[in-house]
């Protein structure tokens, strides 16, 4: 493979030809800030936060769309670069609602992070701010376009990964917005509710509706586990606060799915704390269920199953195990059927 050697911040780096400056820097362990860039999506060079200084070039090029060339000398944090980034951030903040105190994205927001990193307390620009109505039409996704920085990641993930193109840029200039066709509310668009747009949004413009007010990002413990719905086996992170699952997020290194989930995996967790969950053993007495303790219930089950087995033989008992139970549980249920009951009458709904 053809390689190219260059220096980044004085460090010699050798990378395959065709690599972007951003990727080369990252390979060398140097992080360049970005808002619109995403390794999984087409690079568009829209936010220009990733600008760098390259010896011999007059302007500051965006590193995500600039390819390396032999002998290139790159500065990722020169005074000119820092100045340019500060200006970009100040312009973004000029029209951004200064809402971090109450925004659910705080703590996990790239704009907030970069403002902190570049020491921007307020914007010298007195920009116009937007007054768009928040789109809360969708059961799971909240769209607050006042916070949108027009990075276009949601547009690209919807088109390039989900193959949907539900949302796109519309209008011009200061009025540019990312909207579904005909400016319909999201709930009326042809959206599959996968939430990939939410997962890639770097700011608080797209947020999971049901996680609003469910605790600060840093208060939530993320427990990595496997989606309980279909057999794809997507990795999900259960977000736990105060002993309750308050949401689901995805992780870039999910074994099968990366950051992508479907509507059930990302938003289908509401059954966990549903009030109809069974909380106690129930025994039917005179046509009605009455609650019982475990010892009583299990002694009763043992006695009744034992009696059927004793009178009619072990094969008069049948067991259905479950595609929703863990492997360990399925194993024990099979062991129970075969070793304890003494029957091979065990099956589950594999065929359904």
């Amino acid at each position, binding site marked *: 493979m053809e390689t190219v050697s260059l220096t980044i911040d004085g460090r010699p780096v050798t990378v395959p030809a065709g690599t972007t400056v951003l990727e080369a820097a990252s390979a060398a362990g140097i992080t360049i800030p970005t808002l619109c860039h995403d390794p999984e999506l087409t690079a568009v060079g829209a936010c220009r936060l990733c600008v760098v200084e390259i010896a011999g070039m007059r302007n500051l090029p965006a590193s995500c769309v600039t390819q390396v060339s032999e002998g290139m000398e790159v500065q990722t944090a020169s005074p000119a670069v820092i100045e340019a980034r500060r200006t970009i951030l100040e312009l973004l903040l000029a029209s951004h609602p200064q809402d971090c105190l109450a925004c659910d994205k705080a703590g996990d927001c790239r704009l907030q992070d970069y403002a902190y990193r570049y020491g921007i307390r307020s914007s010298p620009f007195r920009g116009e701010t937007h007054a768009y109505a928040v789109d809360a039409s969708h059961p799971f996704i909240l769209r607050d376009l006042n916070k949108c920085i027009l990075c276009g990641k949601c547009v690209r993930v919807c088109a390039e990964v989900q193959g949907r193109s539900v949302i796109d840029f519309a209008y011009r200039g200061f009025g540019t917005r990312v909207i579904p066709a005909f400016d319909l509310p999201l709930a009326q668009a042809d959206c599959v509710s996968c939430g990939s747009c939410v997962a890639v949004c770097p700011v608080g413009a797209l947020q999971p509706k049901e996680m609003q007010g469910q605790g600060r990002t840093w208060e939530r413990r993320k427990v990595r586990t496997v989606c309980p719905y279909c057999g794809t086996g997507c990795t999900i992170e259960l977000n736990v606060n105060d002993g309750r699952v308050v949401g689901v997020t995805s992780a870039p290194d999910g074994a099968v799915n990366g950051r992508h989930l479907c509507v059930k995996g990302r938003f289908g967790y509401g059954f966990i704390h549903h009030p109809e969950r069974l909380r106690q053993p129930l025994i039917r007495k005179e046509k009605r269920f009455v609650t019982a303790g475990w010892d009583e219930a299990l002694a009763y089950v043992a006695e009744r199953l034992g009696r*059927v087995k004793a009178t009619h033989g072990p094969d008069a*008992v049948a067991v259905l195990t479950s*595609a929703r139970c*863990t492997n360990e549980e399925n194993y024990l249920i099979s062991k129970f059927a075969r070793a304890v009951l*003494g029957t091979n009458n065990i099956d589950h709904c594999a065929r359904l």
Partner: protein
Amino acid sequence: MTNSIAEIPEADFIFAIGTNTTETHPVISLFVRRALRRGATLVVADPRRTELAGLATVHLAHRAGSDLALLNGLCHVIIKEGLWNREFVAQRTEGFEALREAVAKYPPEKVEAITGINAETIRRVAREYARAEKAMILYTMGVTQHICGTANVLAIANLALLTGHIGRPGTGVNPLRGQNNVQGACDMGGLPHVLTGYQSITDPAVREKFAAAWGRPLPATPGLTVGEMFEAALAGKVRAMYIVGENPVLSDPDGKHVAEALAGLDFLVVQDIFLSETAALADVVLPAACFAEKEGTFTNTERRVQLVRKAVDPPGEALPDWQIVCRLATAMGYPMTYPDAAAIMEEIARLTPSYGGISHRRLAQGAGLQWPCPTADHPGTPYLHAERFTRGLGKFHPVEYVPPAEEPDGNYPLLLTTGRRLFQYHTGTMSRRVAGLEALLPAEWLEVNPADLAALGLTDGEEARLSSRRGSLVVRVRASTAVPPGLVFTSFHFRELAINQLTNPARDPQAKIPELKVCAVRLEKL
């Protein structure tokens, strides 16, 4: 799956038969889209024009239940035109002559008469599949839920063996499993004829190994499958049932009979997270923890064993299923205790060659392990059959087309097929308790071709009576060109439209899969 999900974009030809992937396995469909973006050809065989069919290069809208004729027809063309992989067939397979003979009876013109697919299209698809560098077959219940389900699967395997599209990355025969741990439930011996890792219950050496580990002799004859259990219950032979986390009243065919069978038992114990339609019939209901409240592992459709971690406590006194089973076994005089789920996996690994190298400790370190993983230093197996098949040589199985158990007739002139929808799941026990999912899909309807609606004098949105030989329901009809004239479609997610009261329990003789994908029905104005 013989191969891995991540390999799908490597394929240059994908043949998806009987799978509505974008709705039932949405994340897997993203990999199919990636393959398409890289220029792969997608052929979808499905009587319905699903979203996936809309993405396809070629959509084969074959008659419901005619899959086997189609598959044999493809093999016919490949052999007739000399497109089979001679080297692979010679070195890795046996029984080729028998296959050649069997598929000789399926020339494309005859297959066209059975399937409704143009003979020239059959030829073209066969050629492209055979000539592809890497061709992958994806399928789901659309292929298996038929009286000829086993034969359908064998016919798919014939196609892959014939062309050598197996045993390499980006190829293979890939069933997409519908439920999160259906693969694991099978792997763990939740089946009447096998123990863990598909070790046969009829093999004395296997029984001896398990008897030694479990301290009890094992019954030697295979048990009943789920459908047979309900029949035996109706016949008074099965007198008690222990049902864990299943809802057969809604999920199984001929639902009224299932409910009758359960009601007639001497004793029914149901263990679940909600009071399901099945639990409501029980004598005792045991409250179980859900996936978020326990430790353990799930195995996905590509054989990847992954860790399930506890995030929160179960509600009230509910317990993880494994703890309930331990306590019940102990109450029945068989002391069963484990410190944790990891210890159970250690026992599984000792008894199961394909899980031999799997432990919670290893799983915690990475992205899971794909079985076979025989030893603690084995990296797992992304694709099967690389050097040899489990039985040595891959065997061709000549299989004959049989028409569905019920075909349309004067009384029941339409065919009903069933499936799943994106916003709901299985019998809805979980998904229908998620408010947002309910908002996205609050009700079910019957999809009917506009021509059939017009002929019946029905209009879109109207309520109508749908009947089969087993029952009758009132349904709301919706005009849809996704179904061809003569075919109607709905899902089984909704108790308000308990379609399995109508479906046919006629079963495949080997796999005992009920023919949920086709039955004859009549639609009438109310």
